[in-house]
Structures are given as C-alpha cells and as structure tokens.
C-alpha cells in the first residue's frame, strides 16, 4: 500500500507525525540536538515556563524506581522573556513546530505567560501544566479542583489565540470531569498524563530521596495508568489528546492511539535512549503500513472495549 499519513492537527498546530517529546524530559531543544534530528519530530515540547525566572527545587531532584523514576525538579526556568531571548532564536534554524509548556503560581500568572508567549510567531501551541506535582504554589491544586481548573483554562483561553493543550493531573477520581471542563472552556487539546505524585525514602538517613520530599513518578511503571486515563478522557471529549506515560517502543505509541490519543509524547525514554522518539515515529509508520492503516484518524480510539 502507499505511505500511511501520519499527520495530526491540534487546533491550528499541524504535526507531520504524532510524536512529540514530553515537557521537561527534552530541555529547551538544543540539549538533544546532537542526538536527535529535531525536524524529524512532530513537535518539540519544551520545559515548563512561567512569567518570571524560577529557581526550582534543591537537590536531589530525581530518583530511580522500579521501571520508572521520581522527579521534583520544581520548574526552574528563565521566565517568559528569558525563554524568548535564549531559545526562540535557536528554533529559527528548524522547521519543527514548537510547543511551550507553561505554568503559573496564580491564575493571573497563567494568563500573563500565555499572553507573552502566545504573541510569539515561532511558537505553535501552548501546553498548560495545571498538574505539576512539584511546586508548592497552585500547581497540582489547579489540576484537582475543577472550579480552579476552569478559571485557569478560561484565563489562558482569553489571553491567546494559539492552540492551548491542557495537561491534566492523573491523581483524580474521575478524569472525564476535567477533560470535559477543558473542552468547554475552549481548549484545543489535552495532554494525559503528567507524572504521578509519589515518594521514596532513604531508610538509612530516614530522609526522602528527593529534596522536595515528594515527586512525580514517570516511565514504563505508569504506562497502564496513562493508557486508562487516555481511554477515559477520549470518551469524554472530541478534542485531540496527546497521550504519554512510559512510551518506549512504537507499539506503546500505537497502544495509546488505539486507546484514543491523537498524538503521543516520549518522556523518560529520552533519558534511557535519546533515539526513542525517532524510533517510535519510524515504527508507527511501519506498523501502520503493515496493518493497512492509512491515517492516524483511522487508528485513533479503535479499541474494542
């Protein structure tokens, strides 16, 4: 058969294939440029940015666990203007769409960073992190209280015409409520899931393994949780979902798409093997060809459940 069509659209954002990288696992872009041809990716999603520069948490910031890892980086970053000055120029040399993950301490913060970054032509979409388990302020709360959640999405929506992708918190009893709320508030897409609130303790020192005490669990360990959340969210909304959580192989990505995701993000796997994202893209294309699947739409949400 002829080449399958891997194109995916999230609002006005056009990805030539459904694979991006998970925010925070790929830096700001340049860090992996030696290892990955960025223009092969459907999009590059960069580390979370807020209005002002932020220092993040003390160390240790990550800890390895069974088939996964904990992270509590705490969203350090150069702030909106710093990002524009340091990173946008780098991307002028590439064609790959740029998704910027944003967060705020207050609802106003979310609006301001969305407004500032939304005005940047080079940025293709904003991914709104309402579910960072690792910052004291706001962070997780916005992701688990549906009223606060709506205020954030409304505020961001009102401040930019760029596609906005809302990154949902996994630690809720019913993710459908949040998925629907985001759609109703005008979100162009959803990202599922963020790392899961977790903890590890050094039994000798009796101190948490992370300076922040708790952190987010990511990697293959959480994949079955992520697949279920994507499957549930996809039944609740019609806007596209970027599925993520432990994707290491093309088959993992296909599983997320069959569950209902329109696109996927490779996160922790970048640390294990920087070539994962490109390997996943090639593997999805091969799998689709082998299975006579002409387009992602034809595959998306086809789980017989």
């Amino acid at each position: 058969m002829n080449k399958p069509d891997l194109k995916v659209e999230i609002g006005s954002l056009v990805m030539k294939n459904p694979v991006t990288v998970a925010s925070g696992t790929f830096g700001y872009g340049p860090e992996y440029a030696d290892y990955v041809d960025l223009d092969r990716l459907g999009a590059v999603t960069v580390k979370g940015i807020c209005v002002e520069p932020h220092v993040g948490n003390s160390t240790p910031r990550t800890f390895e666990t069974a088939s996964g890892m904990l992270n509590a980086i705490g969203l350090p970053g150069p702030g909106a203007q710093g990002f524009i000055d340091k990173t946008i120029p780098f991307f002028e040399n590439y064609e790959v769409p740029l998704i910027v993950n944003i967060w705020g301490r207050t609802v106003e913060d979310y609006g301001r960073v969305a407004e500032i970054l939304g005005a940047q032509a080079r940025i293709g979409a904003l991914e709104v992190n309402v579910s960072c388990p690792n910052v004291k302020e706001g962070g997780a709360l916005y992701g688990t209280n549906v009223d606060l959640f709506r205020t954030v999405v409304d505020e961001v929506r009102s401040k930019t015409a760029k596609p906005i992708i809302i990154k949902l918190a996994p630690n809720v009893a019913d993710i459908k409520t949040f998925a629907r709320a985001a759609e109703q508030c005008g979100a162009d897409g959803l990202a599922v899931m963020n790392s899961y609130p977790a903890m590890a303790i050094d039994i000798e020192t009796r101190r948490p393994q992370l300076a922040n005490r708790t952190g987010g669990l990511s990697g293959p360990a959480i994949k079955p949780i992520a697949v279920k959340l994507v499957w549930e969210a996809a039944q609740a909304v019609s806007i596209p979902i970027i599925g993520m959580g432990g994707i290491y192989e093309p088959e993992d990505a296909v599983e997320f798409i069959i569950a209902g995701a329109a696109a996927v993000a490779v996160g922790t796997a970048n640390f294990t093997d920087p070539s994962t994202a490109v390997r996943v893209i090639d593997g999805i294309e091969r799998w689709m060809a082998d299975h006579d699947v002409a387009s992602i739409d034809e595959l998306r949400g086809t789980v017989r459940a």
Partner: protein
Amino acid sequence: MKQEKTTVVEHRLFHGDYRQLTLAAPAIGPLVKPGQFVHLKIPRLGEAVLRRPFSIFKADEQGLAILYKSVGKGTDSMRSLQPGEPVSLLGPLGNGFPALGGGKTLPVLVAGGYGNAALYLQAKTLPVKGVAFFGGRTAADILCIDEFEALGWDVRVATDDGSLGTRGLVTAALNPWLAQHKEQFQALELFACGPNAMLKAVGDIALANRLTAWLSMDRNMACGVGACLTCVIKRKTETGWEWARCCKDGPVFNAKEIVWEED
C-alpha cells in the same frame, strides 16, 4: 557528542574493588578530552530507566576504557558483562579539564576513588608533569600509581589506615607539600577528582591560598546531556548564585565558583 552502540572488548579486575571495562567505540573514542565521561546504559537491567555516568579512563581511535566499582544495582549487574556484548553509550560528555593555565608550570593532581581514572588522560596530556596526590581508605583503594609514574608524575599517597604512604586523608600529604612550595604558588595549578569531601577540602585549600583548582564533581544524573536539570550545582554569580549542570556545564568547575552545600 554521540550515541554509539559499542561492544565489550575486555572486562577484567583492575585493582582492589575496581574493574576495567574496555569498549570498542570508534565514534566516541576519538572525540574524548581529559575529564569527560560517558553515560552508559546497563544491559539486562530492564527495570532501570536511567543510564550511569562513568569517567573516561583511557581513550583512542578504537574506543575507550572505564574503571568502575560495584556500589549498587547498576554497577553490580555490570559485572556480568561479557566480551562481545553490545553496550549503548552517550559521549563524550561534559566539559572536561582545561589545559594548563598561562604561566602555570607546576600542575598538581589530587585524586581519590575513581578520580584516579578521571585524571589519567589529563595527567597524560598536560605538557609538564608535576605531583599527583592519591588518597583512599586503604592500599587496595589506590589506583593507577604505576600508570601515573610511567607518565613521569611524582606520586604521593595517603591512606586512612596508613597501609600505604602517609596515614590520613590526602590533605595530610598535600598540606605539608604545599607548605614547602609556597614560593611556587604562582606556578601551581590543581586538578582534582574524588569524593565530595575531598573536593571540598581541596577547594578550601585553594581558596585560602589563592591557588587555581579545577574540581571534577559527582552528582546523580538522569539525562547526562543538560536537559533534565537533575545534576545541578550552585555556581557563584556577581549577584549571588545560579544553577549549573554538572553533566553539561561541568563536571569540572573552578573551585572558586562553587557554592558548597551543607551535608
């Protein structure tokens, strides 16, 4: 920096608790600068998502060698590596040691643990050979004495139990020597790698005596390439401090830049 599928050429006991792993790495080998490291994916450890960083001991056109010690599940399972087995590497990573500074004529190396391996290429590359101070718990911990002497270095050893050289920390050997070479301080430049406490001691001595000291730091790493911000170290700035990434901006830092944390 490259990602390369290397092959185990040789894997043998080196000295004391340390093993030497030699890998065929024609892509990475030729690029190596002294003080750089590789990020190694441990085979057959399916439950581990993170690579492990190891200083490059030796390197050439064909590949490179590392010295490692078992301290946990990753380094334990490395012990079963067989010649011919594939091993994925990222490297060479980090900034590495700088060349000898202008006007410096007496390089001094201070090493402990795998630091001896991390400093070997620097010892080989430096245009003049000076004095190398090695520290460890006991004689078995002191690596590469012959290698360094063969390069023309004057090796001084200190062991906690006195089983080799001066009894005590490496500073017990370093301090008296420094006291005798005060007049040459202008010409001195220090390069150190080893346990954190040793690096801090060397850093303090350097600052107190206005000596230039380059310290290769060890921090837990995830990505190894500067992307995840796991391995950060506080670095002085005019206004205060900033986070520097040990894997990318380091692992080698000028002692006077480092803000030492408690504990």
